[in-house]
Structures are given as structure tokens and as C-alpha cells.
């Protein structure tokens, strides 16, 4: 400690007073009792003229033009890797971003981190076990996957389910659409910063999941819609539960509007961001809310109706600009339209069987097994060997919350599918991600991915 020579510190500060300079903790009664700190030697610090950078550091000058520096050379592209573990990528999606400064020039999604070999597993499961597999592909819309598969198998069998089964299927799938869009809104909101949306979305979803649990036994991945009908009838008192949902949701949707609709931050982050044009969407086989947000009025429920959905009146919301805001808006309005369908189904639910009567396909009621030998044999054959489906191949598509969910089933006359392939909507929608993100900023990536609502279980299968 030099206290004899004057310590010339940087910046021309006055020489330090050794007594005040030490900054030691002085413990009472241990150091010199005559130590009296004074302000002798301290001086008021004048403005420091010596170093240019200190102006920036002290905040006297703010340089904010580095963000828009157009002189970034063409070769200076940084490759940024996002994922596969990242909170905003909705599952395990990995993105290679080529950045020039803050602008994204190219994107390459890398998928396969959730590949489960479901199409191979499907060849090992019987036709009535098939829904357990398909339901886990798009795990936010499991009933739609089951519906596509069941419709394909029923078409191969050339059977029609009873009207009550068809109506129950529509009731469950439309409620599933609402639940899936609630998750989409929740994660959309959370990724963009409206953290309360996460809580709101999942809160509403709980009432729908409680209804699902009452009817199918599970909150998710239900294995409820099976070839031949549905697994069990609706629980007694289901009308009250559905009526409660119908009462509750419109009020909550107004809450979301209050939170988001006129919020300038939300509008600034979603309008004009992640734009896809209708021609690009059609060329890249994008379907669902993303396609409808670009202005193309295409919904499989209207174009190729399935399971009797054409008896119900509803509209298909269509956007204009194809940006993140329009996709969000289309999803909110689809919730309202699905509520209309659910109400109509509830009012007009036909009576009858909830599954087809053909004992070669559906198992007999449990009580009959004790009474009739034939019922016992049918039950045994169905659950050990499974029912055989005649040779053939078919492709059936339903409108899932993400787009066209198709199931291509090939049978060779055995009890197991020869080949089962799912046309996964998110797989194709993800091809639109590089288009939507071209020449946008990194911060908009999160908003764009959230609005594409990919479900990686669907993408990777």
C-alpha cells in the first residue's frame, strides 16, 4: 500500500487518502481507538473528460443505431441453434437460424426428436387397439386422431355407425377442438408475454377435461372413439355438464378479449408478423387455421363432411392477412363456432346404440358374457385375435384443430393393419415456418412458432 508516493490513478483522480482508501471493516475495540475518519482529502469529483467510452457507460450518450446498421456484410451470417430444449418451441423442435444481425435470412427446422415409431407399432396392434396408438400422435386433439382412424377402418369394413355414435363423436371432437384451441391461446399468450393467458387457458380446459374424464375415463389420450362406435355411452347427467361449459366459456372468451384485443403490445407483436400468403399456403399443403387465416375458405367439415357434421349449422371463420394476429383471431372464433355445434348436438342427440350391433366387430355387453356362450366366444376372439378387416386401402381425413388429419390404412385381410399412416397436419404446417419467418426479426420467431401451433407428437410420430 503506497501511502508515501502519490498514487496517480487512471483518469486523473486526486491522490487517494490512505486512511479512507483501505475500506476495511473496522471492528469496534480492535483497531486504533484514535482512528477518526474525516473528510480531509476528499474532493468533489468533476466530470471525467479523459475517456470517450465513459460517456456511453455513464449514459450521457446513448448509441442506438447499431441495431439498424445496414453495413453488415453479406458473409457475416451467424448460425444460431434454437432447441431442441427450449421453452418456446412447443415441444422438441430444433431450428437452425441464419442471422444477419437481428434479421433471419434462412430457417431450417430439424425434427425427429420425438419420433416414436408409431406407424411401426400400429402394425403390431390389432384394429381395435389402433386408437390407443393414434391418439398419442396429436396429443392435444386425441379424439380427432381416433376419429380419423376409426372412420378409415369402418370404411374398409363397409359399416356405418348408428346415429347416436356419430353424434357423440361430433360432440367429443368439437369439445376437443375447443380444448386444443385453449392450449394454443394459452401458449401463444405466454410466449408473447401475456403470462395470464396460460392460467386462463388451462383453467377453462380443466372443465372440458373433467367432462372427458367422466365420459371416457381419461383426461387425455382417451381411446374412446373406436372402430364400430364409441367405447361407452355418455354418463348420466352429461347434459348438465355440457350446459355448464356452454354457459361458462363465452364469458371467459370475453375475458381474453379484454386482455388481448386492444392491448397495444399484443397488437404490435402480432400484426404483420409471420405473414404467409394464400398461394404459399396452398403450395406447401398447409391446412387448418393457418390456411384459413390467409383468406382461403377451406374446412373439411364443410367440404367433405364426416360423421354427420353437415346436419349442424356453423360458420367457418376466415382471416385476411395471414399474420399471427389473424391466426389467433381465427382460433378464438373457431371456439365460438364449436360451442354452437356442441349446443346443437346436445339439443338433438339421438337415442339408440352407441356402437354398432355387429358382434363380430364390437364386444358384447359385459352382462351378456355370463349368460350366453356365444357372447363369451365373441368377447374372447375379439380381445385375443381381433376382428379381421377385408383387404383394401383407404384414406379418410378429418378436420383437426391443426388442419387436415388423414389416416391411410392398408389391410391385407388380417387382424392387424398392414400399413397405417397418418397424414399429420403439423408436419406439413411446419414447412410454412421458414416462409413465415423469412426476413423477420429473432423476437418474432417466438410469436410465429407459437401461432403455427405445432404439436411435435404429430410431426414426428
Amino acid at each position, binding site marked *: 500500500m503506497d501511502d508515501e508516493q502519490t498514487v496517480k490513478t487512471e483518469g486523473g483522480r486526486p491522490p487517494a487518502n490512505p486512511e479512507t482508501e483501505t475500506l476495511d471493516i473496522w471492528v469496534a475495540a480492535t483497531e486504533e481507538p484514535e482512528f477518526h475518519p474525516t473528510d480531509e482529502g476528499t474532493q468533489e469529483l468533476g466530470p471525467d473528460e479523459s475517456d470517450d467510452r465513459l460517456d456511453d457507460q455513464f449514459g450521457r450518450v446513448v448509441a442506438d443505431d447499431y441495431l439498424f446498421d445496414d453495413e453488415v456484410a453479406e458473409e457475416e451470417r451467424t448460425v444460431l441453434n434454437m432447441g*431442441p*430444449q*427450449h*421453452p418456446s418451441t412447443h*415441444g*422438441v423442435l430444433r431450428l437452425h437460424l441464419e442471422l444477419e444481425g437481428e434479421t433471419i435470412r434462412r430457417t431450417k427446422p430439424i425434427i*425427429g*426428436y*420425438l*419420433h*416414436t*415409431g*408409431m406407424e*411401426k*407399432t400400429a402394425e403390431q396392434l390389432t384394429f381395435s387397439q389402433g386408437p*390407443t*396408438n393414434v391418439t*398419442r400422435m396429436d*396429443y*392435444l386433439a386425441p379424439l380427432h386422431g381416433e376419429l380419423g382412424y376409426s372412420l378409415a377402418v369402418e370404411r374398409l369394413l363397409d359399416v356405418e355407425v348408428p346415429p347416436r355414435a356419430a353424434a357423440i363423436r361430433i360432440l367429443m371432437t368439437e369439445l376437443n377442438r375447443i380444448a386444443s384451441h385453449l*392450449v394454443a391461446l394459452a401458449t401463444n399468450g405466454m410466449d408473447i408475454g401475456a403470462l395470464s393467458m*396460460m*392460467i386462463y387457458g*388451462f*383453467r377453462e*380446459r*380443466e372443465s372440458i*377435461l373433467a367432462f372427458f374424464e367422466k365420459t371416457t375415463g381419461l*383426461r*387425455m*389420450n382417451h381411446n374412446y372413439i373406436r372402430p364400430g362406435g364409441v367405447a361407452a355411452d355418455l354418463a348420466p347427467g352429461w347434459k348438465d355438464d355440457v350446459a355448464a361449459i356452454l354457459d361458462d366459456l363465452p364469458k371467459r372468451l370475453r375475458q381474453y378479449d379484454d386482455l388481448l384485443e386492444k392491448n397495444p403490445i399484443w397488437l404490435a407483436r402480432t400484426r404483420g408478423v409471420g405473414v404467409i400468403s394464400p398461394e404459399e399456403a396452398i403450395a406447401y399443403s398447409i391446412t387448418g387455421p393457418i390456411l384459413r387465416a390467409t383468406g382461403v375458405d377451406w374446412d373439411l367439415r364443410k367440404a367433405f363432411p364426416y360423421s354427420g357434421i353437415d346436419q349442424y349449422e356453423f360458420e367457418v371463420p376466415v382471416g385476411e392477412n395471414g399474420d399471427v394476429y389473424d391466426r389467433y383471431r381465427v382460433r378464438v372464433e373457431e371456439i365460438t363456432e364449436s360451442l354452437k355445434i356442441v349446443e346443437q348436438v346436445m339439443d338433438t342427440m339421438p337415442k339408440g346404440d352407441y356402437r354398432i350391433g355387429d358382434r363380430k366387430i364390437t364386444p358384447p355387453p359385459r352382462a351378456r358374457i355370463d349368460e350366453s356362450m356365444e357372447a363369451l366366444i365373441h368377447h374372447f376372439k375379439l380381445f385375443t385375435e381381433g376382428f379381421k378387416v377385408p383387404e383394401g386401402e383407404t384414406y379418410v381425413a378429418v378436420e383437426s384443430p391443426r388442419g387436415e388429419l388423414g389416416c391411410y390404412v392398408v389391410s391385407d385381410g388380417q387382424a392387424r393393419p398392414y400399413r397405417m399412416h397418418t397424414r399429420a397436419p403439423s408436419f406439413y404446417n411446419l414447412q410454412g415456418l421458414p416462409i413465415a419467418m423469412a426476413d423477420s426479426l429473432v423476437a418474432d420467431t417466438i410469436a410465429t412458432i407459437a401461432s403455427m401451433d405445432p404439436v*411435435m*407428437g404429430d410431426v*414426428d410420430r
Partner: protein
Amino acid sequence: MMTTVERAANWARTRSMFPATFGLACCAIEMMATGAAHYDLARFGMEVFRASPRQADLMIVAGRVSQKMAPVLRQVYDQMPDPKWVISMGACASTGGMFNNYALVQGVDQVVPVDIYVPGCPPGPQSLMHGILTLHDKIMAGEIVR
């Protein structure tokens, strides 16, 4: 035989365990539902899901781990600072679940050491919370020493 300091440290560790976001598939949705309002994880101090593994102490492997994902899982686990715990949530993470095939790692304990297995497909929020609370009890009782 635990000293008071160890007991206090265990108490502190259980009362604000930060989970790392490792939601992979369907179980991730149930994990999010557990953190949401109806089944609230915030009452255990755990609603803050840290994106960076460096700031997390609990990794809930929620979902099926494919062959491509296994090295990533190990890397994220290695990045977590000690003391760290792993909950394997769901049938696919615990044993490969219904997908006994080429594409999945049959049980995440082939890649990382697991403390608690939560069965279910997917396990409901109550099951996951039971698993988390069992982990808390085990740490408090000193069974898991890190």
C-alpha cells in the same frame, strides 16, 4: 443421522425446487396443467419452470425420449448444478410405455439416474404432485443424499 444443518439444508431445498422445462410429449401438457391454476404447483414454490438448466434443480422428464433426443437429455442433465433430482413422469419415460420399439429409449433411467417414477399415461396432475411430494419427503428424510 442428520445434523441440524443438513436438516435445514434439506428443508430449504425442498421448499423451492425449480423444475427445468423438459416437457417432451403428452405428459408435458399434464405438467403444464399441474402448474396452472387448478392444480397449483406454486404452493410448493415450484411454479417457476426455469428454461435454463443451469438454474434448475429438478428435471421432470415428461414424455417419450427418442433415440435422437437421448444425447440432448444427457447434456441437459449434465448442465444442471448439484444437487439435482430427476422425476421420470409417465409410462414412456419410466419404461418406454406402450412403444416397445426401435425408436424409443426404453426407460429414461438408461440415460440419467432417476429418483422418482410417476406411472400413468399420462399421469394426472394429482399423480405428478404425489410424485413431487414423495420426492420432497425423501429429501427431507435424508434418503437421497446429494
